[in-house]
């Protein structure tokens, strides 16, 4: 029983982290209908930047994250402006292949520079237990992950709902022609959206780097988690991502509780498929495209 409660609580906290991984993907899909295969690799690129900068900047993880976010925003603007914007109106498959190509290039550049070794980012909360009773143990690291992810999603939700940028993003996702007639530069809006996606992805990358570690090819395995979280939440729904993350996290840990740790991932995927079979467009799909 203790273990069951523990699994649920850890699952919820883990789910927050999964949401941070997926939210950028959801944003990009909701706005431009792009299935961004490169999201996972960009996330890992963010992890590497945080790792390198935190060594350079006297070990300050906050400063390292700030620099990383600025760099990643630039990377996002460059990728979107120079590459993806040029193929978006040519159909889904060319854009899919371009993001595939970017993913392959990014992960192999990382491999070239850092090798295939497993890396991690040190966390000040790694060995602190916030709550430690007979019933449950809540690790400081997982709690901080959850809080940062929840804050990230709240901020993104606020940007989308309340700011001018958010309004132009919603306009572009609703009807491109109408948005352009109303004076929204949709291509530029896509650039901002990709910057937001990579910034949120890098926060996810830092948390993943602290909690699980990473190497140059980790992007693909986190990408499938991101996709899973986003499709059960409903592509394009920011809040749905958090719900999707929590469902996947709880499903994985309960899968491990009932069927053993080997089945953790399998039960997670099975849950995703069952939910998608019952609700083929996700649980909440607020920003439905076309």
């Amino acid at each position: 029983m203790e273990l069951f409660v523990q699994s649920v609580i850890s699952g919820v906290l883990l789910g927050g982290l999964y949401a941070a991984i997926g939210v950028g993907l959801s944003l990009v899909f909701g706005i431009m209908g792009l299935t961004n295969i490169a999201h996972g690799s960009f996330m890992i690129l963010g992890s590497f930047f945080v790792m390198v900068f935190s060594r350079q900047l006297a070990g300050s993880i906050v400063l390292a994250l700030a620099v990383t976010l600025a760099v990643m925003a630039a990377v996002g603007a460059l990728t979107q402006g120079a590459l993806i914007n040029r193929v978006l109106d040519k159909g889904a498959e060319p854009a899919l292949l371009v993001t595939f190509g970017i993913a392959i290039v990014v992960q192999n550049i990382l491999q070239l520079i850092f090798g295939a070794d497993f890396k991690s980012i040190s966390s000040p909360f790694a060995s602190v237990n916030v709550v430690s009773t007979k019933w449950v143990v809540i690790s400081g690291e997982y709690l901080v992950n959850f809080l940062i992810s929840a804050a990230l999603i709240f901020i993104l939700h606020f940007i989308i709902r309340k700011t001018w940028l958010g309004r132009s993003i919603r306009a572009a996702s609703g009807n491109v022609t109408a948005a352009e007639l109303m004076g929204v530069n949709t291509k530029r809006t896509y650039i901002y959206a990709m910057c937001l996606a990579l910034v949120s992805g890098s926060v996810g990358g830092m948390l993943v780097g602290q909690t699980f570690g990473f190497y140059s090819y980790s992007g693909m395995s986190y990408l499938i988690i991101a996709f899973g979280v986003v499709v059960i939440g409903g592509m394009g729904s920011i809040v749905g991502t958090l719900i999707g993350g929590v469902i996947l996290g709880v499903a994985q840990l309960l899968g491990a509780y009932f069927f053993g740790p080997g089945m953790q991932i399998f039960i997670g995927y099975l849950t995703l498929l069952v939910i998608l079979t019952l609700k083929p467009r996700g649980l909440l799909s607020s920003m439905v495209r076309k």
Partner: protein
Amino acid sequence: MGQRFWNIKTLCIVAAVAVLAFLPRYGSDYAVNIGILVFLYMSLGQMWNLLGGFAGLASLGQQIFVGLGGYTLALVTQEYGMGIAASFGIAVGVSVVFAYVISFPIFKMSGVYFTIGSWIVSEAILVFFRNWKFVHYDAGYNITAAYKIPMGALYLGALAIGVGSIALVYAVLRSKMGLALMAMRDNESAAEVRGVRLYRTKLFCFLISSAYTAVTGVVLYLNIAYVKPGAAFSIDWTVCMVFIAVIGGLGTIEGPIIGAVIYVILRQYLYNFPGISMIILGSVAVAIILLAPKGIMGAIRGRFGVELFSVRRRVDERLE
């Protein structure tokens, strides 16, 4: 129907296949090996093109069937001691049944949900095989039956698979179902109103493509001779398929032929640049799509109007 069967194009194609069939007698081992890879990857590309280019089912899960083909070969020859020939039939059976079963959940999803749903299924299969005692967990199999096959025979098998994949796609597209597929591709709702049964047509394409991908997988693993879950069910297979189909030209039969030649030769050439080979391959993919979004065949058709395998139907010129 008034077209002569033995026109110039048909003769050229038959002559090309005949010349290719004699490559093992005159070509070097290296050339033969490249030939094997080109034919097999072209077959994979054709099958993905049938799904993604014609049926509108952009799947990221076709590696399931490559893996099922490989594992069928391994189990049939290693565990049950049957001949290699038996594994082709069993691979078709297994993959059709499996594709039919997973079609129930994943055909409920459309568009990008289908794309991601199919990938999740394949990741689930990968994890399942890693935890499945019957297939030796993550250790996999050495396929010893494959050691004895002479390279010339493997080459002819690969050639047959490659030519067969073109013939299959051509036959499907020239059939009544091909018309339905093209109507669907152009306007799904209009096609449905006109009496095209969308679900059945898509399902049929999915089953054909999956079965043939599995057969190709059997021959691929005769060449590789070692199967383990991580490689057999790797997303990399589908990345190759998408690369070949999209670079060559989506929705054309010639596209995957061009795509496969470019992919295999480029990859072999890039072995000379260890470390940066994949970086170059990825950049080339991006560059080609930026320059020719419809793929190489799409660009050629747009400029010169050349078609080798026309699946369009024309009214007989004499009747016009």
